[in-house]
Every structure is written in structure tokens, then in C-alpha cells.
């Protein structure tokens, strides 16, 4: 009983710490990257929430998919995502991650991001405003706090399914297996 309590307290502290230090991988995958500088710099200043950019996947917590993903990028994004340390979160940014958006009939972009990566939160807009981005982060913090942001677990559990989808569009699958 006492041990459980200790574990629970540990979880609460861990979640609290996680939600207040969301380090975002600085990977401008799509055109949504244009609204990230205003969000991060003085006008909207997302660092107030402990959100800051991070250059390497291994140190980052959040992967921002800023808009559409070309198939060529998807391959790199998957690799990047798998290099990130758990717990890790994915944010889908803009309409094009939800159902294709602007690029719905493009031969080179994926349409539904959650088929290929576990997305914890979607932000609406094309572009989403910086307020939208911040709102997405706040929502993500809430999810982390309540323990619902567990896309990374979902990814591990359903790896086969994700792999099938990924391999359907990425024709030449020559990648090392990360996902630790």
C-alpha cells in the first residue's frame, strides 16, 4: 500500500515536471514552421510555459509536425520520432495533418498523420495562429497531467499496424530499427 502511494506520488511529480518542460524538436517539417518563430520569440513567448526549441531528437519531448508531410519527409520523421526518448508527444499542426488539407489531392503528401504516427493532439488552422499553437501546448499539458498523452505507448503496442501503414507509402524501407 505504501509502495503504491510512493509510486503514485512519483508519477504525479514526473508528470508535473514533464508538462512544464516541453522541449520541442526544431524540425520545420512543413509550411507551418513559419508560425513557430513568432510563437517562440518575444511577441508570443512560448517559453513562459517552459516550451523551448531543442536541436536533437534525443533530448526533445515534443515532435511538432508543422503541416503536411511529403513522403520523403515522412521517412525522416519516423526515424526522428523513433530516436526520441519516451515519453514523447506528437503534435499535428494544421488541417493538412487531419485530412489532407490543401494538399488533399497531392501525390506526394500523406493525408492522415495518425495513420503513421501516434498523434497526441491536433491543432486546427491553416496556418494555426500562435495562439492556436500555445493552446495546443496547454491542451497537451493537460493531457500529460491526466496521463492521457500516451501516444508513445500506443505506438509501441501497435507497432505492426503503424509499420504496415508506413511501408505502404514509403516504398524503399531501408531504416535501422530504433524505437527503444
Amino acid at each position, binding site marked *: 500500500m505504501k509502495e503504491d502511494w510512493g509510486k503514485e506520488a512519483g508519477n504525479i511529480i514526473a508528470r508535473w515536471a514533464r508538462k512544464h518542460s516541453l522541449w520541442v524538436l526544431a524540425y520545420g517539417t512543413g509550411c507551418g514552421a513559419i508560425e513557430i518563430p513568432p510563437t517562440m520569440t*518575444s*511577441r*508570443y*513567448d512560448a517559453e*513562459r510555459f517552459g516550451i523551448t526549441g531543442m536541436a536533437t531528437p534525443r533530448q526533445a519531448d515534443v515532435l511538432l509536425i508543422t503541416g503536411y508531410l511529403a513522403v520523403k519527409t515522412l521517412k525522416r520523421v519516423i526515424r526522428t520520432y523513433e530516436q526520441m526518448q519516451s515519453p514523447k508527444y506528437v503534435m*499535428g499542426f494544421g*488541417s493538412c495533418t*487531419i*485530412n*489532407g*488539407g*490543401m494538399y*488533399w489531392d497531392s501525390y506526394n503528401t500523406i493525408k*492522415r498523420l*495518425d495513420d503513421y504516427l501516434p*498523434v*497526441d*493532439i*491536433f*491543432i*486546427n*488552422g*491553416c496556418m*494555426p*495562429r*500562435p*495562439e*492556436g499553437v*500555445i*493552446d*495546443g501546448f*496547454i*491542451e497537451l499539458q493537460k*493531457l500529460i497531467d491526466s496521463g*492521457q498523452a500516451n501516444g508513445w505507448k500506443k505506438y509501441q503496442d501497435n507497432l505492426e499496424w503503424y509499420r504496415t501503414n508506413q511501408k505502404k507509402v514509403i516504398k524503399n524501407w531501408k531504416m535501422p530499427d530504433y524505437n527503444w
Partner: protein
Amino acid sequence: MKNIKGALVPFSALKYLGKKPHTVRYPFEKKKTAERYRGFHFNEIEVCIGCGTCSTICQNEAIDMIKIEGVEPGRGDSGLRPRIDNGRCCWCGLCVDMCPTGSLSLTDQYLHTSPDPDSYLLIPGVDNPEMKENISFTKSDTEPLLQFDRVPMRELDGAERVKSFAEVVLGYMQEEARAEATRCVDCGLCVTACPDHMHIPEYIGAIAEADDAKALKYIYDNNPLPEMCGKVCTRQCETVCAIGHLGEPIAIRWLKRYATEQFPDPAAILNPKIAEPNGKKVGIVGGGPAGLSAGYYLALRGFDVNIYEALPRMGGMTFAGIPKYRFPLDSLDKQIDYMKKVGVKMHNNVRVGKDITFDKIRNDNDAVFIGIGFHVPYTLGLTGEDLENSIQAIDFLRRVNIGETVDVGKKVVVIGGGNVAIDAARVSRRLGAEVTILYRRRVEDMPADWEEIEGAEDEGVHIVPQGIPLEIIGENGKVKSIKYGMAEMVPDDKGGRPRPKLIEGDEHILEVDTVIGAIGQEADYSFLPKEIMDELKIERGRVVVNELKQTSIPDIFAGGDNVNRTMDAISAIADGVRAVEGISHYLLDE
């Protein structure tokens, strides 16, 4: 070392330490979005007509038209409403600029963050009624995308017109027609109002694509008298046109007229496929639009069709009732000739009940279609009505159209406000008379087309609204003058439209040579034998029919003015087309 100053310069930023930050401290403090911000959609469900233009222009296919609860399809409303897939939308606002009614707008709301990707479907106006307060980006009046102005139609000058019976409307030239057809947004709402449900967007589209032959095929698919419709149709389609909500409706009638005028011989373009004779015979009483339509499509289906018409030409009321400056004889002949080519047998100058008995027609044929129209005028009910030179508009027009010389004298009064009254007035003008129209109500209450009323005024017809005829005064058995009283409009107790009430003492006398009554007509069923009259269900002068125009006697079908209340040519054509279905069903069990 020389750049030591440069090395220190960054520290000058320290002076900003004390200043107020320009950071937007969202979410603690919200920045107001611009007045034109393009956020989520909002749609005024009541104003929206479900034309689907937003869905057509959307380059992301983000807009679906769906059925929603509480919105019923109707005249000029498809009953569908847009639903936006925010997983597709790019908030360009083209849909707003293209919306013909201005019901769609964008709001200043933009936040939607959710872990559930399926939550991004939005039915604007239904899911977010509260956003009515937040509308920000709306349709612009000054920078429109749609064209709201009609290509003007060239017409003869008013003074020129009264000199002859030459056609007033000159018709579109090719480029004008293309330009006018280009304004259409292809929604198809016009079809909801057309009694015949013609394929209007399709033929307008074909005209815009410079394929007039294709347009003609679409037109002839369910209307064998398009040239007539193109000239004199009451064009209910234009009253519901999507573009008409904020601008002038597409000139659908003139476009149809344009398409039919391009081809002197429709048969060459249409190459109608006539089915093998199926051995069934149909007799048609009355060669008006209803009878002719029924006859044409029946003939196409292989029936042996005979049409019996009392007048010297086919066309019924469109021949006898419509003046030649609106619908010239050669236009009518062109269509009748085409029908003859298809194999419709026509018998003119045969009055059923007199020259041939109805029973004989019924016995000779497997089915009979009655399309006799309304040719018997209502009387005015005034003293002096039976004087010489007090005539009925419908008789007057028929006599003029048949080619008789009619002397109306110098001064004419027409009583009534419908199209027939205006026709009679304008024909009288052309016969050289000064014409006054007496109408009980206001000009805006007149049932006639506004174009007709304007045309009449251009030609110098004097309209006296709110004038109620009281007595026709005669001298030597001839009309000498007419006494009428002025009326004021009083609200109707029963909630109907305002009705005229005579003002005591405000009476005038007008010297006239001829009085023409034009207050309505009815059908003449005297040709029917008594046992059929007993069996046939007739209500308020109109034969009762079912959906497929079948009467209470199974082998007798009916259509046209003697069946429906709208009393126009296109309804009659629609009846004919429906009756073809009914007759085929009845005789061939199809």
C-alpha cells in the same frame, strides 16, 4: 581591437529592461483579432438556399452538402446545407465570396484543439449558432466575384413597336448569350421551380461551353416547345435563381430562346430516335402545349397519335392568345413542322363534339388525352356589358391572331391586370387606339409580368390602378363611355393581401369606343357526352387527375389549363410530359 565598440553594443539592449513588454500574454490576455479575420465558418441556415456553390468552388473539397434536420427541400431550396471539414479547409474564404445569398461568413473564432481527429467536421450555423455574434469576414458588396448584372436584352424602341406586330425582343447575339450563360453557378435550384423540371443548368452550361447543339438536346429532352417557352414562358425558374437573391437572375428564358433560335431545323440536330410502332393509338383533344407535348413524346415512343384542334392552327392558347409581337407565327410553325416530322398526326379545324364526336375518338383510340384549355371568358358582370363593342380580350386576341380585321376605334379601355389584359392593351395600341387599363389594385399587385407592364407603359398604354369599373354607358346600342370609381387599399380582415375599397363619390367617366374585358377564363366541357361528364370528376372547372395525369376514367388523361391552376404554357407542357408516362404505363404496363 578596432571593433571593441561593436563587442559592447549588444549590451545596449539593457535599456529595454524597464520597458513594458510587447508580448501578447495569451492565454491570460487575448489579443483581439482583426475585423476581417478568417476563422471558422458560420452559415445562416434560414438564408442559405443549399445551392452548393461553396462546395463547388472549394479547391480542397472541404465542403459537403448534407441533409440536416429541420430543413425541408422546397421551391428554390435544395434542403441541403454545407458541412465543412476543417481537416481540409484552408480558410481562403472563396466560399464566402462566392455565396450567392451571402449567408455564409467566417467568424473570428479559430481555436479547436483536440486529440480526436474525427472532431473536425463542422456544420456551420447548426453546430455553432452562438457564433452569429462573432461574424467577421463577410461577402463584399463592392468587390464581387459573381456577376450580378444581367446582360441587357436588346428590344425595339417603344415608339417603333406600336407601328407593327414585329417581335419586340430581339434575342441575344452569340457573345451576349455566352456572357449571360457564364454567370450561372450550375446549382440547379431553378429546376425546383420549373413545373416541367427542365435540365436548366445543363443547357446553360452547354451554351457557356459554346455547344449550342448540346444545349438543344438538353432542352428537347423534356420540352418539345422550347421556342415558345423561350419567348413567352412565365419563367418561374428565374424567381428562385440563386444569383437572383443579391443580383439579377440569370436570363434563363432568353438563353433558351437563344439556343432554339440557332437551329432553323431542330430535327437535323436532334436526330430523334423514334421507337418501332407499338400498335397503340392515342387521341388528343386540343392542340395546345399540353396536347402537343403529349403527342410528341408519345410519337417518339411508337404510339399512333392524332391531335384534333378546332382552330386553323395548332398551338392552342399560345397561338390564339399570345400576340404575334411576342410569339411570331413562324416560330410556332417551325415547332409544329418538326413534330409532324416525328410522326404526330394533326387535324386542324376539327371541333370535337361538332365535327367529330368524343365517343368516336374514344372508340378509335386506346387512350384519350384532353387538353382543351380555358377559352371561355368570365363576364364582367356590369350593366352595359352586352353592348356592341364591349368585347372579351380572349376573343379579341384570337380574332386578331387568326387574321381577322378588328376595329377597336380610337379609344380602348381594358379591364384587368393579368398578362391577357396587357396583351389586349398592347395589341390595341398596335391597331392604332389610345389604351387605358383599369385595374382594381395597385400596379405592384398586377399578376402580369413586370416586363410586360413596363413594355406596355413604354408603348404609351395608360394604366389606371385602383380603378373599379362601375357601368358601361351605351348610346345607340354601342359603347360610349365607361364609369369607374377610384378605390383605396384596405387591409384584409382575413389576413390576405390588401383589397380595394371604393371611395364614395370619387367617380370618373371615360369616353371610349371599345371596352375589353380580361378578368379570366374557364373551360368548355360541352363536347363531352353526358355519361362521361357524370363519371368524370371535375372540381371548380378543372378535371381532377392523379400524379400521372389520369382522370377518374382510366383511359382518359387530361392536362393543361383545364387541369392545373398555374395556367401557363410550361405547366401545360409538364402535364403533357407526365401524361406520356401515365399513358405508357396504362397501355404498355411499363
